[in-house]
């Protein structure tokens, strides 16, 4: 036990006495993980926003007037009730009667008097339908068109919906791909920086071996140092990205179209993962950096000058 405490103390003392090298390693972790975490947050923002854009009415069915040929009274309510039972449709289905349609029309074209100068009775009643998944729009459109005795015309935001779907898919893949690539390069960068730090101290490793330290005795303080550097760098990265993102969200609160506020839960969950990631990257970096100097238990010789 006292040995373990000694090794922990060693690690902390080394961190303090090699401040410059340690700062370099922490900076490397911080920068690379900030980029990776940033990419992840951007990805989340896109996901939130494409979800938001998908909210709302997807299909509008304009109806023939009740009382016209072949449309008995009550046909609208009957159709509304039927559509609500369809599994592709998210109930409730909103019925907009002719009066409401006129009010809506007036709102949309407010101030454009020449457009408002029409006969209000020509505006049809309609059903406003929201889908469980916008991918169903074609089948819903088809089923509505089958009801041709009541349905006059079906409008969908078909192209727009499809484009939005494609865009959000591409952006999701891109964002995730970025996060993964940046995460991998973070491991390489962290490992390399710690390797350099150990390279600078290779004589120290040689001396430890000379005095009879076992490989694990030499390794443990270096591993702890790498882990601490990784965790501090990752914590800084998570904190800075969180701060930046929440400040940006505050500043852009008034934007109706694009929301920037990412849930704190997202930061918490991914933040913990990034801390673990930083710790593991630090340990792996130290292991890789040390392996060269510990590989050969006979190998002090490589570091002892003086020839034969």
């Amino acid at each position, binding site marked *: 036990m006292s040995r373990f405490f000694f090794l922990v103390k060693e690690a902390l003392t080394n961190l303090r006495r090699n401040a410059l090298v340690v700062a370099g390693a922490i900076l490397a972790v911080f920068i690379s993980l900030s980029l990776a975490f940033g990419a992840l947050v951007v990805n989340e923002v896109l996901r939130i926003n494409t979800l938001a854009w998908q909210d709302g009415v997807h299909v509008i069915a304009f109806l023939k007037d009740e009382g016209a040929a072949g449309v008995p009274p009550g046909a609208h309510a009957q159709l509304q009730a039927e559509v609500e039972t369809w599994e592709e449709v998210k109930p409730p289905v909103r019925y907009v009667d002719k009066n409401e349609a006129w009010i809506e029309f007036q709102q949309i074209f407010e101030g454009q008097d020449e457009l408002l100068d029409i006969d209000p009775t020509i505006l049809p009643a309609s059903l406003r339908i929201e889908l469980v998944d916008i991918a169903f729009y074609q089948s819903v459109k088809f089923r509505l068109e089958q009801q041709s005795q009541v349905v006059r015309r079906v409008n969908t935001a078909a192209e727009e919906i499809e484009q939005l779907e494609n865009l959000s898919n591409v952006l999701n893949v891109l964002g995730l791909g970025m996060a993964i690539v940046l995460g991998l390069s973070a491991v390489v960068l962290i490992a390399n920086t710690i390797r350099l730090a150990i390279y600078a101290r290779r004589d*120290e490793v040689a001396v430890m071996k000379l005095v009879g330290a076992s490989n694990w005795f030499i390794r443990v303080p270096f591993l702890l140092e790498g882990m601490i550097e990784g965790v501090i760098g990752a914590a800084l990265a998570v904190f800075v990205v969180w701060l930046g993102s929440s400040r940006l969200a505050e500043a852009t609160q008034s934007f109706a179209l694009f929301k920037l506020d990412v849930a704190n839960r997202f930061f918490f969950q991914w933040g913990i993962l990034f801390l673990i990631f930083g710790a593991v990257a630090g340990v792996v970096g130290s292991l890789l950096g040390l392996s060269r100097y510990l590989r050969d*238990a006979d190998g002090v010789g490589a570091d002892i000058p003086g020839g034969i």
Partner: protein
Amino acid sequence: MIRLENVTKVYEGGTVAANDVSLDIQKGEFVFLVGASGSGKSTLIRLMLRDEPVTRGTIYVAGKDITTLPKWKIPYLRRSVGTVFQDYKLLPNKTVSENVAFALEVLGRPASAIKPQVEQVLDLVGLADKAARYPRQLSGGEQQRVSVARSFVNRPPIMLCDEPTGNLDPKTSVGIMKLLDRINRTGTTIVMATHDHAIVDAMQRRVVALESGSVMRDEATGRYEQDVPE
């Protein structure tokens, strides 16, 4: 204490650094390995430390054949052999007392036992007042005394010294030699590679002269140069 049987060491590239060397070093002996640069002095020291594997032959240290020692046991060998090198090999980020204590930490000694032992040995080498200094704040002679203190602090039965006075002026060298002599008188076997004529001649101890990896001369109380009969 140390026995070399027909030890040969050929480095990659074909340099023969030890050529069929046989030596028997008794407990408590003080042995000088002398010879020009490249004669194989340092190689013998490194072979005894298992810092290099032998090409042929067997080396016994404290009764154990170290040439067949599994790698994971090498640290145990090194803990029972103190070493002093020309370039001191101190840990730059540790203070004098931490450097000396490290040799005991490696053995897993409790902190309460380490402190008095370190103080005692620093007293022996005359550096008690510089325990909190870093190696870079010391002179060469002082650094070498720290190195001697570190190698002696756990009272190893054997000390191997490779040109310990190589970087020091004659006066400082005498100080280090007096220290090694004192340690030798406690019963510690010392093998020292050197090309310092004055020291070898003054000490009047066993001298093993090497040339191109072969033992040319082995005298119980010898001088650096062979006496030319008048």
